[in-house]
């Protein structure tokens, strides 16, 4: 499955290679076109954060952030009363000029500068008069605020892994005993349990590939292909209990290894927010396409498990989201719609309609609902990304 690298805040000079190139291009084009007016140039460095600046009044405005420090930094335009952020420029390289564009409404503004190895600075307070509405500010989430959520998530996943380990033990025993009917049933419950933890796939590292990897890279006949989907392929393609016994045993062994490894891991603080849309991104890419159907036809059930996992993450982040994200009710109604459309495809015998067998209109409705909910989930990662916050707030 997909690993996703999330930007790290200003940790190493190498990070700025790309930023530097972009910045230079911006600064060159600003010079050649004469677009950078001195009044819009905002100088930032390790000992000044914007200096004295002013604007004519409310309206669209582009500041040119001139980083004169020797290192990279993150520059925010904030409401100095509460630290809410109007606009942000991340990873400005030393010696670069980066535009920051927003619609300035009436209110009070200040630049906040975070440079590597320096304290956070807040610059001069500037008031924009009148009664104009501009780009709204959002209260940032601090690193400290995020830590409890990451910890809760880690404990939740650990509890889930313990349940999973019991289920994979049962599954391995079914196969060893030659009861493939029971194995199919227990395969599904175990796999769905794993998929509710999908939130963590990035952090499960190599274990995820061993436990839940598809055969896209290896092909279905490779001995290197292990895990749930390998077992599904065998169970639903007439492979014998003898042949599948080591497959199921390896799965169980890898789940237990993951369970032993997991509690000591440090979860990147931005992960919980990222996973709120990534779990269903993967469902759309691998389950609703049928890519990860190796015979059981249960990718709709897997998508439901992913919805359950997403719901857990949302419940975790809810205190952060309610005051910050007006689109949250649409997220919940979208999840409800997707869930009810999928539940219609649950067969009385407990199995599921494979996506490839869905009538076109039902499949379209499910895909559309999934696309819609993903669109509404997308802002959450940005809103809940941990940020440096000045000590004053």
């Amino acid at each position, binding site marked *: 499955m997909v690993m996703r690298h999330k930007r790290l805040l200003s940790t190493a000079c190498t990070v700025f290679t790309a930023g530097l190139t972009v910045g230079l291009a911006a600064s060159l*084009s600003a010079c050649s076109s004469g677009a950078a007016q001195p*009044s819009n140039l905002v100088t930032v460095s390790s000992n000044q954060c914007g200096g004295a600046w002013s604007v004519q009044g409310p309206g669209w405005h582009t500041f040119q952030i001139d980083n004169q420090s020797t290192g990279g930094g993150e520059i925010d335009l904030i409401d100095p009363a509460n630290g809410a952020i109007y606009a942000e420029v991340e990873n400005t390289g030393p010696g670069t000029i980066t535009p920051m564009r927003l619609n300035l409404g009436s209110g009070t503004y200040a630049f906040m500068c975070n440079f590597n190895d320096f304290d956070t600075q807040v610059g001069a307070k500037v008031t924009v008069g009148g009664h104009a509405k501009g780009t709204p500010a959002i209260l940032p989430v601090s690193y400290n605020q995020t830590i409890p959520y990451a910890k809760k998530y880690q404990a939740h996943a650990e509890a889930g892994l313990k349940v999973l380990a019991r289920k994979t033990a049962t599954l391995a025993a079914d196969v060893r005993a030659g009861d493939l009917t029971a194995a199919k049933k227990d395969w599904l419950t175990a796999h769905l349990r794993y998929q509710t933890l999908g939130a963590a796939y990035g952090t499960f590292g190599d274990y995820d590939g061993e436990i839940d990897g598809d055969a896209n890279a290896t092909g279905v006949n490779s001995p290197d292909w292990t895990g749930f989907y390998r077992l599904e392929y065998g169970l639903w393609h007439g492979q014998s209990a003898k042949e599948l016994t080591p497959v199921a045993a390896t799965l169980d062994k890898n789940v237990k290894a993951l369970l032993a490894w997991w509690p000591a891991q440090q979860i990147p603080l931005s992960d919980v927010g990222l996973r709120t849309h990534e779990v269903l991104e993967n469902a759309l890419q691998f389950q609703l396409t049928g890519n990860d159907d190796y015979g059981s036809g249960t990718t709709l059930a897997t998508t439901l498990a992913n919805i359950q996992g997403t719901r857990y993450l949302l419940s975790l982040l809810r205190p952060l989201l309610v005051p910050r994200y007006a689109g949250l009710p649409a997220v919940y109604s979208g999840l409800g719609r997707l869930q009810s459309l999928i539940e219609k495809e649950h067969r009385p015998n407990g199995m599921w309609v494979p996506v490839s067998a869905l009538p076109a209109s039902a499949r379209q409705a499910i895909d559309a609902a999934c696309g819609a909910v993903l*669109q509404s989930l997308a802002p959450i990662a940005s809103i809940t990304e941990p940020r440096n916050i000045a000590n004053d707030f």
Partner: protein
Amino acid sequence: MTSEPREPSSTEPAPEPAGPPPGRRSFLRGLAGGVAGGVVAGGAGGAAAGYFSRSAPPAPAAADEAALTGRLPAVPFHGKHQAGILPGPTPVTAVVSFDVTAGDQASLTDLFQTLTDRARFLTAGGTPPPVGISGPPSDSGVLGPTVEPDGLTVTLGVGATLFDDRYGLASARPARLTTMTSFPNDNLDQAQCGGDLIVQLRAGSMDTVLHALRDIAKNTRGGMQINWRIDGFASPARPTGTVPRNLLGFMDGIANPSVASARDMNSLVWVQPGAAGEPSWTAGGSYFVVRLIRMLVEFWDRVDVFEQETMIGRRRDSGFPLDAASIHATPNFATDPTGDVIPLTAHIRLANPRTAATEPSRILRRGWNYDRGIDEVGDLDMGLIFTCFQQDIERQFKAVQTRLIDEPLVDYVSPFGGGYFLALPGVTGPSDYYGRALLA
């Protein structure tokens, strides 16, 4: 004729007009609406309205420049009719069929309003609003920080299936709208036929079209789902000053009614107010036929040029009718009743017999070439996106197509998809939206 890309100026002289407030419509929830401004719309009747068009050809130098920079002036969005119908083919197009997945009529209205908002912004251009830390960017960035109009038009049509029992619109169905039926030489793939809606995007370059498609799809997610799509291009006229060729190597779309003639357009293209049996909301619309036609180019290239020319009825090199010495000469079928010069089965003769009786069956024909890879035996999958606009599909497209049944050309082409639609009446102003009279 072309505008240089504008640097966002550091201090905009006037506040840009705000887009629709986020959250006003369900499909815009959480997504900021576009902000118009920043790019000046082209003058009324700008050259975009005549790009490659016979009636108003751009000066060659200007056309070359436009082709090089890929930027055409804005085509005004508001009007009695949709702006993408009359102008000749732009360099690129995308034809995209959607099925509506909105839950009820109110959501369908939201969908049409959102489509209107996006089309209005994308065709005018402007700078998408920054979103701060509130989410991913509102725009894909494919066109850079400022969206250039690049001659973009967005033409929206409705298919017969929209008028089933889902949205309570059965009684409002356009009188002459049906689903597309198969002709004897067709090989229709139902997965590439029909749709509740058709959106045709046309512009100066492919990035403009794909930017618009992504923007529209993103902002309408949940309300409609892509059913099938095809991208096309119009070739430059070769030699310069002639008519663009299709992938059979022949000039295509020579004999069109004049878009400059209001009389012709009112008698052939636009649904007229009070037309027999038509619901009043359809006035100003136009029936829109799309046919996806594979050309078996390998086979065609193994046919000698004389046989090719007698199948078409024109010279391949010059585009002249076989009985004349200029492109736009009217072939004189009356003096050739047995088809000694232009065979009775030649494409141009069957398609447009040039008789008083067949005048009302004329169509406004717009063709684009498509090219999309290879087939199962490694032959090239390319052909024609045939589109035409008319007042009455039965009287016009179907009459023409019926005359063409079993023409010799059918061995070299294979219609495999498309559909029948009604291109909606135009959006007349800032408070109007697509289908307002239908949904009111």
